[in-house]
């Protein structure tokens, strides 16, 4: 007997509890990756239900199918090309009107559809009661009320979804616009007869009138006359209504959504403001809001790095116990050395990045799901905008001072690809804890804390300048804050933990091969005695341009693995930890060396995080740019410092 398989897609606005439902349905049988060729996250999972093996895919959270963003394009492509057996549209019962606007668009795609009316408990608390039967009748599709975080209604939802999938029942209701628009649609639908397109004709007609450029290109190839007629009709409609045709259609669609919402919901206004409301007012207050924000950020930073620090130390000690065992196994010769260095790379990967990534992910999802992240973005909107960043970028930016790896991974919260690229780029410039070790351990210790502080300020200036520059040169529409601040709610702990776990796995898959390869290569170079020839080959840059001692080239190579290794290697190579007595390594060299380390390359784990978030091509460009930038600025600093120190004497 053939296995019975079904495919279900979850679609809906952001923050409606889609991922909670997804996690509830799939449990630990899920896989997080990226959509092919895109850096948009793809979450898939499987479950067994009534003899079916069901594949579930969680589509990105979107507000529309207008293909304005990649997420919207991906969702439309998936629904129309892959044709899932049924789409579950998750909607937030407390913001029904806007959610139904999306539902109406989904209905146009002629795909079997079930509505999950989620968070009915929160809507009730807000004084909104929804007549489910009436909504079902008006929409002509099954509606199942759910409270996903408590698992209420999920079984029924699945039952109805399977039922609809078996019957292959597409929505019967046709969303009717005003007469003028309908006349235009009818004309286009007639012209589309016989045109073979993967979308339903009525959908194509509406989208063409809305000026969908993607679709225009596609139809142009099949029948250019249709596109021309659509343009003509939309021009006529524009003259008639005084608004662009797309505006007219969107407004009418919203009117329909609004009418349905008003018909099915019963509102009762509560007299005293709800707790969520008061919390919102407090956390966005012009004074209290900032105080709470700063305290929260400090608490987050502190807790992540203390928790991570302990975990890191513990794991480190645990792993180094295996060292003698290793040499016993592989001998103390070249092979043993090589194997151990690979092992060291793995240990570095586990002990440096992972202990911070785990608490960071948990905190990040907590902030995002609860709704506090959007309040922080609201408060920081203007300041972050000055560097060309979205207000939300404050979180990765601050966390970057601890470790760039989770910070880069955290840039996932940005809404557009452009914003994400800008945020990861700026984040990699932030001096992480390892770089702080160098700044304080070298410049701070031998030149004084004021010099270290000056370097931090210099770094901030560079971040600001490069951020603005990237903002100007990057193509695409500049960051525009249009963000929903949904009601505060208690995050679903299980979902947060699962999200953390599966994203961690995804990172490990990218990072570990890279770390192992990196450690292996550098060890090979060392074993074959190639360190000095390479240092010599680098001397035009290190010695001539940067004015540093020859062997710093070796230290910089090791720094790729982990930044603090530059300082450790320096001590090994100089044969002393008192850098003040090293000839040819004076204050100028210390500052130049620190500046170069601060900027020259994201460490190998950060590169892995970059690859995960923005793809390897852009990761490579950023890496190369930062190497060149560090060398350039280091050389300039060297020449300026010579002048300054000459004046001083």
């Amino acid at each position, binding site marked *: 007997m053939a296995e019975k398989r079904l495919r279900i897609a979850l679609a809906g606005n952001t923050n409606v509890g889609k991922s909670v439902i997804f996690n509830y349905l799939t449990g630990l049988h899920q896989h997080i990756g990226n959509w092919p060729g895109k850096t948009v996250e793809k979450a898939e999972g499987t479950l067994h239900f009534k003899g079916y093996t069901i594949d579930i895919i969680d589509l990105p959270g979107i*507000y*529309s199918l*207008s293909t*304005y963003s990649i997420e919207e394009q991906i969702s439309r492509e998936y629904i129309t090309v892959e044709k899932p057996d049924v789409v579950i549209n998750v909607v937030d019962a*407390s*913001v*029904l*009107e*806007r959610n139904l*606007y999306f539902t109406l668009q989904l209905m146009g795609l002629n795909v079997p559809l079930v509505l999950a009316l989620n968070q009915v408990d929160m809507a009730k608390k807000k004084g909104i009661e929804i007549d489910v039967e009436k909504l079902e009748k008006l929409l002509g599709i099954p509606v199942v009320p759910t409270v996903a975080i408590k698992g209420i209604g999920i079984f029924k939802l699945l039952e109805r979804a399977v039922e609809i999938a078996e019957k292959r029942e597409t929505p019967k209701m046709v969303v009717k616009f005003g007469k003028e628009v309908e006349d235009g649609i009818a004309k286009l639908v007639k012209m589309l007869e016989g045109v073979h397109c993967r979308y339903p004709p009525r959908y194509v007609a509406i989208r063409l009138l809305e000026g969908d450029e993607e679709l225009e290109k596609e139809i142009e190839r099949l029948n250019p006359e249709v596109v021309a007629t659509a343009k003509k009709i939309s021009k006529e409609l524009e003259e008639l209504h005084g*608004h662009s045709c*797309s*505006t007219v259609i*969107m*407004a009418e669609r*919203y009117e329909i959504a*609004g009418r349905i919402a008003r018909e099915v919901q019963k509102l009762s206004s509560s007299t005293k403001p709800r707790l969520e409301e008061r919390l*919102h007012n407090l956390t*966005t207050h*012009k004074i209290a809001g*900032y105080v709470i924000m700063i305290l929260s950020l400090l608490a987050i930073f502190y807790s992540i790095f203390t928790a991570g620090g302990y975990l890191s130390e513990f794991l480190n000690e645990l792993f180094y116990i295996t060292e003698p065992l290793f040499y016993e196994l592989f001998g103390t010769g070249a092979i043993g050395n090589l194997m151990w260095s690979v092992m060291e790379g793995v240990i570095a990967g586990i002990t440096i990045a992972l202990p911070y990534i785990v608490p960071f992910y948990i905190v990040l999802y907590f902030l995002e799901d609860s709704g506090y992240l*959007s309040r922080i*973005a*609201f*408060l920081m*909107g*203007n*300041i972050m*905008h000055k560097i060309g960043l979205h*207000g939300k970028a404050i979180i990765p930016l601050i966390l970057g001072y601890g470790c760039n790896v989770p910070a880069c991974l955290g840039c996932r919260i940005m809404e557009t690809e452009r914003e994400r690229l800008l945020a990861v780029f700026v984040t990699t410039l932030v001096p992480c804890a390892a770089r702080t070790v160098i700044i304080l351990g070298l410049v701070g210790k031998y030149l004084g804390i004021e010099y270290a502080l000056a370097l931090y300020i210099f770094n901030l200036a560079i971040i600001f300048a490069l951020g603005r520059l990237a903002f100007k040169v990057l193509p695409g*529409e500049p*960051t*525009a*804050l*249009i*963000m*929903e*601040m*949904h*009601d505060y709610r208690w995050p679903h702990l299980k979902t947060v933990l699962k999200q953390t776990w599966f994203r961690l796995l995804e990172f490990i898959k990218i990072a570990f091969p890279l770390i192992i390869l990196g450690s292996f290569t550098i060890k090979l170079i060392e074993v074959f005695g190639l360190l000095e020839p390479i240092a010599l080959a680098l001397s035009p840059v290190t010695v001539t341009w940067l004015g540093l001692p020859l062997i710093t080239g070796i230290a910089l190579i090791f720094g790729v693995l982990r930044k603090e290794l530059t300082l450790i290697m320096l001590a090994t190579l100089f044969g002393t930890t008192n850098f003040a007595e090293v000839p040819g390594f004076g204050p100028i060299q210390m500052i130049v060396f620190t500046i170069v380390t601060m900027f020259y390359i994201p460490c190998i784990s950060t590169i892995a995080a970059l690859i995960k978030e923005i793809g390897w091509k852009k990761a490579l460009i950023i890496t190369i740019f930062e190497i060149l930038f560090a060398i350039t600025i280091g050389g300039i600093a060297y020449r300026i410092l010579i002048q300054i120190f000459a004046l001083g004497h």
Partner: protein
Amino acid sequence: MGKRTIPLTALKAGETATVVSIDAVFCKGCGKRWGFEKRLMDMGLTPGTKVTVVKSAPFHGPVEILVRGSRLALGRGIADRILVEVED
């Protein structure tokens, strides 16, 4: 009673007005418009919709509004381009 069309940012905290249009002209003559216009309308800010300004973040920060039962934060630059009608 007269009606005035003003940018959304000219509303005081707590005031309600009706959306008239979004000025998203990219460049005069070329007919291109910024993409944020569609995003705003997808979020419910279509002409004729009632919108209430709740408050603005300090330092010329984003504007908090209520529209169609949802709470949105809009960058000031964008809010400036949303034209609304108020009755005097």
